[in-house]
């Protein structure tokens, strides 16, 4: 069994599963497109309102111009994902506001730059003529300078629009739903239809907006006010209509929902929706679905925050913007508690639970029954050829081997611990999207990966997990966390209590594989339903 997407060719292999899958992805589109248009439109509007006056001042004063353009230029050099991520700790919250502010900052430079260039490009004799007719500087700006600079300013708005529509897909990991949800979740769950729908919609949106702005620019250039007004009206309609899309879309209100979802009993809800989070990998999507199903089953209203960055999720829970998600004890032990050494499983679980309650008022409801540990894994033939059975065996051979991992492992304390403990010096370290590293090791592009022990692809690709005899890596029990707002909410505790200890590792692996495999692919919701039905004692 070979799981390489490119060798299968996604359009062919997924052909039979395409229709229901495509329908599901298209069903999510109105809500996500609407969110995307809303945050993009607002960011551009605020960006325009900031950049335009700043540009006017900057065009008239060399020093202000240099400072403003310099600052905006620096913002632009920050990768958009990093800029979005930086806003979360800066604002102390996640979701709409950090996304909006990052995108506003991103939109400022092209508009500012073009405003300055446009205004400075107005011929001096026209400014002189304006002054000679007795215009005040405000009248000169309104009647002569801005109208003449307008085509250049609009070209800047077009650039900003294309940038912001693209960058907005990256607002998903900071908790603002966007078309990026389809792309991120699709990439993680190897659902190429979702990726295509997300990319296609984002590209379509960018192209549509660009074409309309180009029309506006052209008609203003021709000084035909009627048609320019028409193009402007079209743009406004698109933004307003797009922003209202989630309301119009049938069967969707507030948070996301899908056919067959259990609807919350509105009258019974006084606490507001319980916000359920998921990080950016398959297991998290499935568990979030399972949590949502349990909560809705108990008549509670649920809001989802998917594809959150790892530290974003914990910070959001800590600050009460997220109510429930599944974390892993080793992650908290190493990263939040800064513990350098490993310890027995029960000890880590107990220490993490106590620490969460004492320092953050977070309730660890309990472990789910499986571990998702960092597991050094190799292709079986390669491991046998090298005679490697444990991480310790790797040490003498590491200088000829390449290690692949997810984005964060190499900057986590666990990597430092395991590297020091075994004296590992690899020939190369490669960071992948975690969904791609399994293929990379299967194809031999890297020799070793830090697989996730609950991932079904370890067995499916016949990978060997290397022992950690010391041990250097902590245990990673999946643990259900309740934020301060719902920590003592009886209804929530009762609804989710059944999940505690209810998911053995082989079941989690099978659920993960149902979503990750190329053939007979299932949605995270299907996998969650299967997980809940098949769990013992239910």
């Amino acid at each position, binding site marked *: 069994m070979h799981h390489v997407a490119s060798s299968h060719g996604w359009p062919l292999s997924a052909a039979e599963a395409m229709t229901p899958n495509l329908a599901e992805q298209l069903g999510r589109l109105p809500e996500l497109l609407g969110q995307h248009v809303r945050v993009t439109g607002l960011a551009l509007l605020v960006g325009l309102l900031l950049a335009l006056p700043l540009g006017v001042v900057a065009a008239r004063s060399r020093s202000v111009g240099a400072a403003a353009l310099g600052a905006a230029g620096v913002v632009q050099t920050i990768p958009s994902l990093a800029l979005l991520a930086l806003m979360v700790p800066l604002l102390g919250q996640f979701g709409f506001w950090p996304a909006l502010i990052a995108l506003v900052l991103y939109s400022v430079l092209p508009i500012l730059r073009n405003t300055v260039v446009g205004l400075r490009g107005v011929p001096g004799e026209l400014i002189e003529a304006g002054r000679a007719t007795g215009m005040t500087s405000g009248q000169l700006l309104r009647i002569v300078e801005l*109208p*003449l600079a307008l085509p250049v300013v609009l070209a800047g708005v077009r650039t900003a629009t294309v940038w912001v529509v693209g960058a907005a897909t990256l607002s998903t990991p900071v908790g603002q739903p966007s078309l990026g949800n389809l792309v991120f979740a699709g990439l993680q769950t190897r659902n190429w239809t979702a990726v295509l729908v997300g990319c296609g919609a984002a590209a379509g949106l960018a192209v549509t907006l660009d074409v309309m702005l180009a029309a506006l620019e052209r008609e203003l250039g021709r000084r035909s006010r009627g048609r320019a007004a028409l193009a402007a009206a079209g743009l406004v309609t698109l933004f307003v209509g797009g922003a209202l899309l989630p309301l119009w879309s049938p069967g969707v209100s507030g948070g996301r929902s899908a056919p067959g979802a259990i609807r919350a009993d509105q009258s019974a809800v006084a606490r507001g929706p319980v916000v359920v989070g998921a990080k950016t990998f398959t297991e998290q999507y499935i568990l979030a679905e399972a949590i949502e199903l349990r909560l809705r089953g108990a008549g509670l209203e649920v809001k989802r925050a998917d594809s959150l960055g790892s530290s974003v999720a914990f910070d959001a829970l800590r600050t009460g913007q997220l109510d429930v998600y599944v974390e892993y004890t080793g992650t908290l032990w190493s990263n939040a508690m800064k513990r350098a050494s490993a310890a027995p499983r029960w000890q880590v679980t107990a220490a993490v639970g106590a620490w969460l309650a004492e320092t953050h008022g977070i309730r660890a409801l309990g472990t789910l029954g499986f571990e998702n540990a960092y597991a050094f894994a190799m292709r079986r033939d390669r491991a046998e050829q090298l005679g490697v059975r444990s991480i310790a065996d790797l040490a003498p051979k590491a200088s000829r081997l390449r290690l692949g991992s997810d984005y964060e492992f190499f900057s986590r304390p666990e990597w430092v611990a395991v590297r020091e403990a075994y004296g590992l010096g690899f020939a190369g370290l490669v960071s992948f999207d975690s969904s791609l590293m399994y293929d990379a090791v299967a194809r031999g592009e890297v020799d070793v990966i830090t697989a996730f022990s609950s991932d079904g692809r370890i067995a499916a690709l016949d990978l060997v997990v290397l022992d950690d005899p010391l041990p250097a890596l902590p245990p990673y029990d999946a643990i259900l966390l309740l934020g301060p707002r719902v920590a003592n909410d009886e209804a929530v505790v009762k609804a989710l209590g059944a999940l505690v200890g209810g998911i053995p590792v082989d079941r989690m692996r099978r659920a993960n594989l149902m979503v990750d495999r190329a053939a007979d692919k299932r949605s995270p919701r299907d996998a969650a339903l299967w997980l809940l039905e098949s769990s013992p004692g239910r």
Partner: protein
Amino acid sequence: MIRFEAVSKRFSDRLVLGGLDLEVREGELLVLIGASGCGKTTTLRLVNRLIEPTSGRVLVQGRPASAVTAVELRRTIGMVFQRFALFPHLSVADNVGIVPRLLGWDAQRTRARVDELLALVALPAEEYRDRAPAMLSGGQQQRVGLARALAARPRIMLLDEPFGALDPASRDRLQAEYRKLHDALGLTTILVTHDMTEALLLADRIAVMVHGRIAQVGTPGEVFNSPASPVVAEHLDAPRRQLSRLAALGGRGNDP
């Protein structure tokens, strides 16, 4: 009407005007002539305060130019530019009606005034009011420029090489027409040029500028017949040569 009293102007380290004294009388057309960089355009711009003097003072209608705000002052003075400087995004009518618009006239009054002005500069309103400046010839554009300057019935007109960018036929026609307008409307005009022939043709008086000072002021006859200095005489070389050449040609032209 306009008086310069010991006016000097310095741009950073360059002295453009060094103690200029000059009076422009009510109703006269004074031509300010001189080589490039002699300060004639600077002198013109001091009148409507597009620039401010470094020292000395400029009196307009008996009052210091600085007695009112620059914006108020400019609305009472018309200005015409060499390269027309029409606003390319506005129609002919909107260009001509710009000062009425600034003064807050209502649409009907502005429209009537614009039509009147276009007739004055020989551009039929029905045909030209909605055109874009780019669709007009140079001569037509300068007519619009003239109409724009005249919109609010100014008593003073400042013309900065107004015919310099026109072809000879348009130039001759417009020169003659402006002279008539000046007289008919009772304007006081300062016209800047470097063309002595134009000066001799149009001026009531000519002021010759050399290096930021007035070298001679007088009627065309006075300047032509008795130049005050060799530099002034140099300006007359071209018209003199033209005159003798024309006389020679005229002699031959009389042959049957």
